[in-house]
């Protein structure tokens, strides 16, 4: 009916189509160059000499020790964060006191501070010249402290929004039905914040397994004692043992994938009651 309109609509549709293709193309190209190709190169290099060789290298005693240490420390740290992080989130959402907004801001410090600086200061605080007389440098405790620092915000930040959105009246309903405060928390609050806690735990775990900056100075990197997986990889690159480094790196890569999958799976499972 209007001669101009169909032409314009077609043109707009084609420009929309072009825009869609462009944004998708750019995204895929960027991701391929920056992420996918390097990861592919890593996986390729590790199987370069065959799967058997890969397995041999990956199960060297030193490599296994480093991986065990990294995973063990990460699990411990993730668990501590699960508890303390939830408590902190609770205090920030439900409690009120002067300076609370400053405390809330400070939680993000480990995100903002370079990890090497964090490592250096942890060394100052809990190392040889410690002002509080606590010298744990070059021990596994030092590694735990460093990892606790860098992972501190994760659980707090994933739990806060979930806590904030809870239906407080459901807790009141539970009380009116006779539930004690502990019961209210366990039966009503916890099931609803669990997805938040678990994603925070998974992120903290992934971060702790791969951490290098905060750990490299304070741990002393003693093989079998305080050498974490990331430092193992780094040292073996420096010394030219690329296949050794690649083998452990691939194991770490698999752990990262698994963690991301776990986060997705957890959220899916635990929110199935929300899908009508």
């Amino acid at each position, binding site marked *: 009916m209007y001669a101009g309109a169909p032409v314009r609509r077609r043109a707009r549709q084609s420009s929309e189509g072009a825009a869609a293709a462009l944004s998708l193309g750019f995204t895929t190209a960027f991701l391929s160059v920056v992420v996918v190709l390097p990861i592919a190169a890593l996986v390729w290099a590790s199987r370069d000499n065959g799967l058997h060789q890969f397995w041999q290298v990956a199960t060297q005693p030193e490599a296994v020790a480093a991986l065990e240490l990294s995973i063990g420390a990460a699990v411990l740290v993730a668990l501590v964060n699960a508890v303390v992080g939830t408590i902190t989130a609770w205090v920030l959402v439900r409690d009120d006191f002067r300076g609370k907004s400053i405390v809330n801001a400070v939680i993000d410090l480990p995100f903002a501070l370079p990890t090497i600086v964090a490592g250096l200061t942890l060394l100052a605080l809990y190392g040889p010249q410690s002002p509080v007389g606590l010298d744990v440098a070059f021990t596994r405790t030092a590694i735990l402290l460093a990892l606790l620092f860098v992972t501190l915000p994760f659980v707090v930040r994933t739990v806060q929004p979930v806590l904030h959105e809870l*239906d407080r*009246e*459901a807790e*009141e*309903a*539970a*009380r*009116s*039905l*006779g*539930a*004690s405060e502990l*019961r209210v928390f366990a*039966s*009503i609050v916890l*099931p*609803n914040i669990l997805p938040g806690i678990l994603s925070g735990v998974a992120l903290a775990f992934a971060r702790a397994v791969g951490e290098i900056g905060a750990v490299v100075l304070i741990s002393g990197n003693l093989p079998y004692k305080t050498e974490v997986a990331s430092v193992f990889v780094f040292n073996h690159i420096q010394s030219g043992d690329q296949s050794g480094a690649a083998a452990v790196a691939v194991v770490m890569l698999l752990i990262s994938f698994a963690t991301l999958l776990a986060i997705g799976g957890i959220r899916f499972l635990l929110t199935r*009651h*929300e*899908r*009508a």
Partner: protein
Amino acid sequence: MSIQIRDVSKRFGAFQALSGVSVDVESGSLTALLGPSGSGKSTLLRIVAGLERPDTGEILLAGSDATELAPQKRGVGFVFQHYAAFKHMTVRDNIGFGLKIRKRPRNEIRQRVQELLELVQLQGFGDRFPAQLSGGQRQRMALARALAPEPKVLLLDEPFGALDARVRAELRLWLRRLHSEAHTTTVFVTHDQEEAMEVADRVVVMNHGRVEQVSGPRELYDAPANEFVMSFVGQANRFGSSWVRPHDLRVRLAPGESTREALIERVAHLGFEVRAELVRDDGERFTVQLTRDEAENLELASGQIVYVEPTRERTFA
């Protein structure tokens, strides 16, 4: 169980929610707390439930002081406007929660939950989650949940406020029927005066944190204690210090002894009832309510001049 509210006051920051409120609720009665937003009715209900603490005053349940008692220990069932469903539990688990807390044997719980599911007509929905139910169904579940542990008092905070008109009307009737069978002392909060009048035996009218009047629905309408109650419960016209109900105004086509002249601005035909908006010679606007037959006999139309006189009017000190 009887409820006695004695001289309760509550303030939130600078806002005085309740000032010296005293009400007696008879055991087994169905009482409405009626008032506009901010009148303090929900606050009062929550204080009775133990979900808020009063600043001053006491709450007595069955004669004993329950003011300091935690909500867990009061034996009251509470129903919230927005259902407060336990989203992560099935309908069955929601309803059975109170019984589980009291550690009743599993068979007993299962049986009671089934009874209640039938009572609220949610028989097929036991294994669904609240997110899969409509608003009306969720509220029925919430009612069943509150009733499961056989509370001595049932408290409902604007229970039908979030539902659409038809569901609201159904649930109102249902609540009335439930009460006449079980005779649990029931108190519900509403801002809808029609709902209060239709459902309750006694109505407590509240405004700005104070009780304005406590009486049965009929008395509330026919003998309001003050201007607020007069204007809040039912329609009322105000002429200076005089108050007249729309149906207490007689319309004549010719002037009489005590009539005033008025112009009809608009006539609305609402089925059986006809409502006309008029303006008096002195500029006052008011409403008249007549039956269909009356309106037809007078042949009322917009633009017509008529003569109006009150058959009953009221003034307040």
